[in-house]
């Protein structure tokens, strides 16, 4: 009798432990400035831009399992089981060589499932900036070294990553990632795209910024640019900075300014 009780107890305990053990893997939060940042590009108005540093500062990065029920249109946050990192991370999107992988922000333990939505905030880093662009731009015989500091904050809620492959799938013991993608071609345009393409029609280009340089150097902030650029130019810059956040080519809703840019 006692033996039977012990066996049953052992079985029950084993079942309890098995039930408690949740399958999980590792979800990596990554940030990507794409080839525009890593390799440089030519702006819509013909300036060859190279970045030495592209710092973005993010916080409250969360990935969600929404089972496809989230559409980043109305500004609502994704709803579903989630994992997050609330630390403040400043990432240099230009780090590494021209073929560098998207930058690892943080790896977290995550329950199994498909993480098909992500949200993050762009916050002020230690230097007070949410975005900092350091590099050079060249056109004809002109060279402009720039240090552009943006102190505006943004908050993005995004759907599933759209790219060559679907991502965010966690099985027991596996590792996968979710990506915050930053499309800086939105700001400067793309010389390789048609002039009437959306990417160029709404972009600022680099010429308005080059015009502000003194002795080949432009060091400015978002606040200073509000006075230095024309009203239309500054509005364009502000508009396009808010649309930086993407998930690959998938879209996000930018809550601070009420933008949704399904571009990309």
């Amino acid at each position, binding site marked *: 009798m006692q033996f039977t009780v012990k066996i049953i107890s052992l079985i029950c305990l084993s079942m309890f432990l098995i039930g408690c053990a949740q399958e999980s893997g590792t979800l990596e939060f990554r940030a990507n400035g794409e080839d525009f940042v890593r390799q440089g590009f030519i702006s819509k108005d013909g300036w060859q831009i190279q970045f030495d540093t592209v710092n973005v500062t993010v916080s409250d990065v969360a990935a969600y399992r929404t*089972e*496809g*029920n*989230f*559409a980043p*249109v*109305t*500004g609502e946050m994704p709803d579903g089981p989630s994992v997050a990192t609330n630390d403040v991370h400043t990432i240099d999107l230009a780090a590494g060589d021209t073929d560098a992988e998207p930058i690892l922000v943080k790896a977290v333990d995550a329950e199994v499932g*498909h993480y098909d939505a992500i949200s993050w905030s762009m916050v002020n880093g230690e230097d007070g900036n949410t975005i900092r662009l350091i590099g050079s731009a060249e056109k004809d015989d002109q060279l402009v070294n720039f240090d552009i500091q943006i102190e505006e904050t943004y908050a993005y809620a995004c*759907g*599933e990553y*759209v*790219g060559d*492959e*679907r991502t965010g*799938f966690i099985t027991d013991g596996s590792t996968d990632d979710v990506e915050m993608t930053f*499309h800086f*071609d939105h700001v400067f345009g793309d010389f390789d*795209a048609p002039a009437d393409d*959306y*990417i160029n029609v*709404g972009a600022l280009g680099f010429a308005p910024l080059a015009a502000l340089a003194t002795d080949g150097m432009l060091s400015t902030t978002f606040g200073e640019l509000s006075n230095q650029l024309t009203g239309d130019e500054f509005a364009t810059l502000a*508009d396009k900075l808010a*649309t930086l956040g993407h998930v*690959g*080519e*998938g*879209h996000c*809703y930018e809550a601070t*300014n*009420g*933008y*949704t*840019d*399904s*571009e*990309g």
Partner: protein
Amino acid sequence: MLGSSANLVKKNSMRKLTLIASLLIVLLFPATVAMAHGVESVVEIDGTQVTVFAMYDTGEEMSNAQVVVYTPDDPQNGWLTGVADDDGVFAFDIDNALEGRWAVSIRTAGHGEILYLDVAADGTVSAEAGSNGTLRTVLAGVVVVALAGIAYFFSRNSSNIKNDERVPA
């Protein structure tokens, strides 16, 4: 006098109609004004025949968009890969024996989205209700009907006032 009173009523009615219409539009389409060039594809389903109309939110078609269809049981490997035509149209026959949520990835240079389709246990195929394009089509219809009703209401009111004023004292 009679005519000016009727015109005044008519003007007031139109102002009210304009205000109500504006409020309806703002409430139902809060992101419309700030929306940039996005992707808002539409899906039509006829039995197991699925037709994707890949388009930007301007209504412009996403010509030759790359399309990849994923099944519920293998969500990471494409089940079907193809290219939309010049009008952004891509049609395929879904396997409704595979119950669950399907995904359709639609991409072109710098633009993309993922649509979701559901196959029920009985084989019925439906599109995810959160699809932006589909939902907006429904809401647009509601707004039109509402505006028509309001317009009719105010037109009847101004008409009744005109008739009353014509009644001899």
